[in-house]
């Protein structure tokens, strides 16, 4: 099949890639654009490890064709830290121990980013409902919820502190 040039903005920079129509976005990102933050977990649109922000929507990059992204604005975990400073979500996941192995974390943070754009003050129930497309297989979700609550508070301009008993000392 003929390849086509697809142009989009990735983390603020314009990119052009040459792809077959059947190429999935996750492969373009990881193999052609050195953007390996979005992970391939299940490859069946269940786990959310490949989540990217596409034109203001959280999507699973394993279930989007790259040719569908022409002209899009895309954000991946690589676009979060600015000038060496962690994004509040990254800081939250660090401060509240929102990860163990970290495999799900880029997808978690990218998804949580869109959630907080849509709802800056989510309840715990809101967070659990709207994060349900991201799976963590290390442990429970309690610290992930706390991490997002930490980031939400920080992004609202409130003073935040870790709830972790050792880090807090």
């Amino acid at each position: 099949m003929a390849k086509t040039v697809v142009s989009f903005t990735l983390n603020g920079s314009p990119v052009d890639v040459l792809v077959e129509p059947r190429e999935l976005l996750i492969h373009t990102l990881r193999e052609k654009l050195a953007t390996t933050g979005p992970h391939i977990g299940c490859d069946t649109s269940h786990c959310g490890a490949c989540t990217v922000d596409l034109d203001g929507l959280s999507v699973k990059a394993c279930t989007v064709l790259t040719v569908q992204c022409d002209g899009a604005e895309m954000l991946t975990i690589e676009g979060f830290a600015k000038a060496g400073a962690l994004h509040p979500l990254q800081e939250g996941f660090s401060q509240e121990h929102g990860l163990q192995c970290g495999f799900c974390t880029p997808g978690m943070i990218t998804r949580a980013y869109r959630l907080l754009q849509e709802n800056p003050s989510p309840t715990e129930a809101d967070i659990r409902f709207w994060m349900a497309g991201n799976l963590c297989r290390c442990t429970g979700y309690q610290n992930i919820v706390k991490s997002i609550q930490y980031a939400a508070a920080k992004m609202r301009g409130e003073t935040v502190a870790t709830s972790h008993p050792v880090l807090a000392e």
Partner: protein
Amino acid sequence: MIPRPFEYHAPSALPDVIALLDKYGDEAKLLAGGHSLLPMMKLRFAGPAHVIDLRKVASLKGIALEGGEIRIGAMTTENELIFSALVAEHVPLLVEAARQIADPQVRYKGTIGGDISHGDPGNDHPAVMLALDAAFVLAGAGGERVVQAADFFLGTFETAMAPGEVMTQIRIPVPGPGTGAAYAKLKRKTGDYATAAAAVVLRMKDGTCAAARIGLTNVGPTALNAHDAAQALLGTAVDEAAIAQAAAKAMAICEPAADLRGDEEYKTAMAGQMVERALRLALSRVK
């Protein structure tokens, strides 16, 4: 997993979509949100030579109140339904159902038109459409036609849509005063298809049931219109005896396929339970 090679088309006007469907016939598949088609293509269960993406067709988007109906463009996503104040006000059942479909990321892409026209008995909108007495606008080379939900679902992956047609709009009559509705879905986890689910719309008048419609998800080759179960409610106060009777009649038409979610007997029993739950909830919402 990577799909077989195909040629990609992304027309921006409906006539171009129809012309492409006409030109490529069986070789073409319409791509809406892609969360049924792309997984099937990745698993090589589907291998269309031509994929016609509907994402640029602006006329397939949007939600409006027109002529006593909520009219929804077929490419409207599940999250757009959930976030719509118009839908929440006039057809809250649709919000309740959409919130139980798949997961947040899938709901940003998955569309109501795709969910309905795919013909998958596990999809949730078909039963909801049966309960709401919805109609679908289908466009093809010969023009437009409107098909009632009750006449649309023919079998697994089989609908009244003719080759060369595309679903453009979903029309839902706004339920009148005295109506209560609910969608009760049993699923093992977020993102799973229903083990069984029931959509119910009830209209009460002077304490008795004046109208009722019940749709069932994933307990037959297609979404089931539980007509006899709904008829059994008419004239009753929708008390526990009537609810049990309706559930029994709904269970009588179930023919689920056994899979990891359960065997036939279990799924049928759960369909009865979902009918009971949805009826109680719908009754409590009557206003």
